[in-house]
């Protein structure tokens, strides 16, 4: 069940699923596209209309779907491992909301216009501040109530300040765009967004995945983990830094997409024998698959303008969350 071979098989399977959904995401769109012609034109470097649609519209959407999903899945698993609580999700504990605030300030007040990296950095700073605050509140093994209350507080404050910032922003459209930041969307993102966000996300994944062995040790609590030779400062730094970079950059280009980091680790955990170290990569891949799938769904659901991505993930995630809370209340965290 928890053997290495079983795990390799799981990772390959999830990888294949992500690749498949990535391909479907490229194929699905609002207008019929000759995919073969688009691909051959693109590979031959010909500037054709199908190649343009494929490279500039569908590719960034699919890449961001996979990358944002991976970020949310892997950081959800890492926060849960660090706090040893299965409800620690970047959305629920307020990290995504704070990242949105940082990105909104960077974007609407023109910082990102003069310095493009200000956008992901704004998200990173927001997410970093929230994560550090959370760890201060939940010093050693947070109980569920503390985590949720901290999340409520951070989300309320970040949401209010985001609305305030959008109201103060010079653009007349800004105030109407709060829903993008609160619910998230991948519609009409471009390769520019990919180039801005992906390096930060990859850095974040690297940091978080480097904590895998320590995550396993933390199953026994912080004291036992330290006695096994792991530095808690280093683990916290890896997870906080990785979460800030990956979630901050994700939210900066796609808004706050909720519940992926909650649902995915929960679904994947039994498949990795509940080992928090192995959970990281598997959750990342499953998060990518879920987000790609949800983004395909919003394009297939015939509502115009299309549903925000966070609406779909919330419809899936919120009942999950409630069911988990119910169970945690019965069993204790």
């Amino acid at each position: 069940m928890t053997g290495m071979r079983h795990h390799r098989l799981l990772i390959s399977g999830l990888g294949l699923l992500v690749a498949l959904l990535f391909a479907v995401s490229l194929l699905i769109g609002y207008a019929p596209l000759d995919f073969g012609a688009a691909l051959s034109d693109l590979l031959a470097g010909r500037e054709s209309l199908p190649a343009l649609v494929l490279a500039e519209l569908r590719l960034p959407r699919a890449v961001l779907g996979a990358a944002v999903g991976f970020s949310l899945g892997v950081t959800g698993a890492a926060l849960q491992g660090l706090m040893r609580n299965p409800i620690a999700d970047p959305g629920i504990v307020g990290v995504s909301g704070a990242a949105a605030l940082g990105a909104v300030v960077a974007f609407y007040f023109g910082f990102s216009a003069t310095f493009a990296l200000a956008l992901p950095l704004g998200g990173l700073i927001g997410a970093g501040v929230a994560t550090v605050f959370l760890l201060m509140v939940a010093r050693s093994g947070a109980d569920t109530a503390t985590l949720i209350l901290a999340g409520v507080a951070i989300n309320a404050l970040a949401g209010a300040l985001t609305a305030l910032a959008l109201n103060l922003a010079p653009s007349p459209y800004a105030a109407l765009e709060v829903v993008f930041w609160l619910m998230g969307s991948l519609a009409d993102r471009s390769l520019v967004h990919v180039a801005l966000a992906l390096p930060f996300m990859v850095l974040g994944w690297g940091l978080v995945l480097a904590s895998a062995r320590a995550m396993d040790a933390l199953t026994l609590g912080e004291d036992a983990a330290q006695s096994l030779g792991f530095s808690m400062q280093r683990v916290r730094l890896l997870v906080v830094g990785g979460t800030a970079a990956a979630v901050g950059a994700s939210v900066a280009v796609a808004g706050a997409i909720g519940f992926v980091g909650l649902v995915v680790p929960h679904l994947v955990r039994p498949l990795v024998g509940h080992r928090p170290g192995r959970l990281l990569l598997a959750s990342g891949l499953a998060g990518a698959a879920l987000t790609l799938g949800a983004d395909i769904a919003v394009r297939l659901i015939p509502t115009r303008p299309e549903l925000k991505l966070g609406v779909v993930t919330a419809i899936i995630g919120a009942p999950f969350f409630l069911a988990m809370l119910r169970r945690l209340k019965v069993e204790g965290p």
Partner: protein
Amino acid sequence: MMRAVLLLLALLAAAPAAAGEAKPARIVSLNLCADELVLRLADPGRVASVTYLARDPRGSTVADLAAQVPVNRGLAEEVVPLAPDLVIAGAFTTRATTAMLRRLGFEVMELGVPTSLEEAYAQIRQVAARLGEAERGEAMVARIKAAMAALPPAPADHPTAVVLRPNGFTAGRGSVPDSVLARVGLDNLAARLSTDRMGQLALEEIVIAKPDLLVVNSAPDAPPSLADELLHHPALAPFAKAARTVPLPIRLWACAGPGLAEAARRLAAARERIAPGAPSPLVGAPAGLLQ
């Protein structure tokens, strides 16, 4: 206490309202389109207040005129002390304010959103008549019509165009821009793609529809917003590179007024630029593949 104040205000307000159809002397506008008509048709001394939007040259064609007039943000509290004898509001905006002002006894004129050039002309005449400036209204309509008539004749092959507004909104069937496009001999693709007059289009639909002209309603120095960012998406770059993009400030054709003539003139000039059969901005895309 509150009720007493309201009653007092109502009594104060009742006097001017009772004056009926006299030429209004203290006009308040709560809508940008009304601002433009009021400022152009009435003498400045008669305008008590217009919206703050009228002073922003990015969105308003009357920013210079508005500079001499007090501005409001569409709140009843701002309007009542001015004791206006005519309030002009939009039919779809500041609904609560409109209702409150009516309850207090003010005369409120509501402007609908015209759906064609003819309706725009009618709206100009309607507002002018209520302001007691029918002749000025008639003159404004005549000037717009004359400018339209002076445009070069539309070609037979009807090049296609799509209007792209912030947020991916377009001007679909049954809108003034649609009517202006038709007047200058452009085939509005959005009328086919989108069902209503404020439809949203995915960028992908616009690119694949391959319009001959992309009319971009944006201000070059607009403050950052997601809505505006869309207009600079790299997927639209080939259109700009091939000079198929016409930047057209939205203020020119958002409201009934002389801006419509200017919009038509710029669009006709852009249409003239693209000779019939000019190469598409994108090579190697046989039209057959796209349908």
